[in-house]
């Protein structure tokens, strides 16, 4: 066992990479849940994003186009969910599940010919002096642009929800759709937009796994983080900055666990791997004492009686 082989700066840098797919998926789901919709189909949208991004990047040679395609694919799949829950008044839990099943199967079909292919590499942002700084360099600089985009997205969502009119309307719809409807807001339209945003974000998260983190395509490759994104939103009690904190915590657990394994520490991996979920349950219990944090209309369908 040799713990000194673990370089803390590289550890932090790699946990940031490990956490980025979670950041994308969780911030998207946060917006969806803020609007009062519970979309359990995150995994389906992620995996479809992963395969669409991968295929596009391989065919065009441009990872950037891959990410655009991934966001589009995630959003397209989420349209199905929007139709089911917002127009057909279907149960949100079951609809989310159908989305996950469909996405998993669909991605396996589409990705069949891409197994074992290497995707084009995304250029890292290389700042001549800054990246070479001893500790700060690898942590803060020298990542790929998508990682910074994820953090920027968190900041943007936070600012929009907290300060803008759109954010206020979104929250109103999520807290009390009848009141929002009475005030003249288009509940269904706002929720559909939120669902689309969530789908696009989940798609980006999936593509980040297949294009940057792993980088290759394997069937069901998002399985490791299937519901952590969902858990994260609850863990963060629907606050964007806490999503960042939680994602880095979960990313940290993953990376530290891999490093400990490599260093030969005999901690059962399985117990470490289940810890994020146990922590989430604990947070859920603590939060349920304080009902104010969850959007009040979460999971309830809206049908305007005209």
């Amino acid at each position, binding site marked *: 066992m040799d713990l000194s082989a673990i370089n803390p700066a590289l550890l932090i840098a790699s946990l940031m990479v490990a956490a980025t797919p979670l950041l994308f998926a969780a911030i998207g789901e946060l917006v969806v849940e803020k609007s009062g919709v*519970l979309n*359990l189909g995150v995994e*389906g949208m992620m995996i479809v994003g992963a395969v669409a991004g991968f295929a596009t990047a391989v065919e065009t040679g441009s990872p950037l186009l891959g990410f655009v395609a991934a966001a589009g694919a995630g959003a397209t799949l989420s349209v*199905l969910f929007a*139709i*089911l829950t917002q*127009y*057909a*008044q*279907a*149960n949100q*839990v*079951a*609809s989310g*599940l*159908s*989305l*996950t*099943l*469909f*996405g*998993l*199967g*669909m991605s*396996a*079909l*589409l*990705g*069949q010919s891409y197994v074992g292919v290497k995707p084009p590499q995304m250029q890292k942002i290389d700042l001549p002096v800054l990246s070479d700084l001893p500790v700060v360099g690898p942590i803060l600089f020298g990542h790929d642009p998508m990682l910074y985009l994820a953090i920027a997205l968190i900041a943007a969502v936070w600012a929009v929800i907290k300060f803008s009119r759109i954010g206020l309307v979104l929250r109103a719809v999520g807290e009390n759709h009848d009141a929002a409807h009475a005030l003249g807001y288009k509940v269904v339209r706002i929720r559909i937009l939120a669902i689309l945003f969530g789908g696009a974000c989940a798609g980006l998260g999936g593509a980040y796994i297949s294009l940057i983190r792993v980088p290759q395509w394997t*069937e*069901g490759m998002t399985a490791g983080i*299937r*519901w952590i994104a*969902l*858990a994260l939103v*609850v863990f963060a009690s629907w606050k964007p900055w806490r999503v960042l904190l939680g994602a880095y915590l979960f990313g940290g657990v993953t990376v530290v666990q891999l490093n400990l394994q490599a260093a030969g520490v005999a901690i*059962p991996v*399985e*117990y470490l*791997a*289940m810890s994020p*979920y*146990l922590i*989430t*349950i604990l947070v*859920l*219990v603590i939060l*349920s*004492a304080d*009902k104010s944090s969850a959007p009040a209309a979460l*999971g309830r369908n809206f*049908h305007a*009686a*005209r």
Partner: protein
Amino acid sequence: MIRLEKRPQPSQAWSLATPLVAVLATMIAGGLLFAALGKDPVEAIRPIFWEPLFGEFAFYYRPQLLVKGAPLVLIAIGLSLGFKAGIWNIGAEGQYIMGALFGAGVGLAFYPLEAWYIFPLMVIAGGFGGWLWASIPAYLKTRFGTNEILVSLMLVYVAEQFLASMSLGLMKNPEGFGFPGSRNLQQYDSAHNAELIAGSGMHWGVVAALIAVIFAYVLLNRHMVGYHIRLTGEAPRAARFAGFNPTRLILFCLGTSGMLAGLAGMFEVSGPSGQVSIDFNVGYGFTAIIVAFLGRLHPVGILLAGGLMALTYIGGDIAQSNLHLPSSAIQVFQGMLLFFLLAFDLLTNFRISLGKPEVA
């Protein structure tokens, strides 16, 4: 202009017709999808819905129908009780795993003793394991008001990690040459859930599934608890005024569904699967949710729906070997089926009317 009008009563006719319409729509959409991917649509659909029943090797596939259908029906019956009352157990997959681990654990603890009481003890342990795992969200919901959907979902992953840990550690076969996975219970007579009639696919799990169907039917139609469940789901406020105890109902619904899922896992690990291994669970717990919905949360409906979903599993295996499709491609069909079912369900609860709204 197309408008939706809520029906005062859910339509009986549509309630029965939607599963059939959904299956048809899935076949058509699935065919179109395969055509778009450049595969012959008929060749893709036929192995799933025709081959297992009437094809050349049907004598092999028909017993598989019982083997694959039994756990689905067993789990879905339990889930339907909760779903009817608006209690959402999404973690049947985890309860299925825990039931298998508890059941197999008891069996392996007795190895190599041969005695008649081992298998019954394993059944009890399996049911207990599933019940225990489902009681966690039930307790947290009744005590703290925690959302049972998220807790039961999180516990699936925890159970999967337990499964991995067990098959690599405590339950690993000491004579397994270092391979992960437990002893094969099929080779241990006292713990083997053998076919009751050789070659029929009929094992104790199938019997349990049939008993569960009858039990659920009687419970829902002839028993006070079933009445509580239905009333709580359809009119929660009325149920509260009538003085029904919601805590007891939550504990009962989640506990029962967990127990049945645990039993399903136990019958699977001691029978068709044979051993505790990392990839033991194949998503029955999630597919059972589709089965419950497809069967309209009605025991007899679930029995039929379980058969249909078992067909897609078997058909998926055939399509996989014949058409070289990835194994998870069958999930496209399962997802689509649930999708169409939910979409067409609209017609059960709403009437679509054309034209302008009438002035009241």
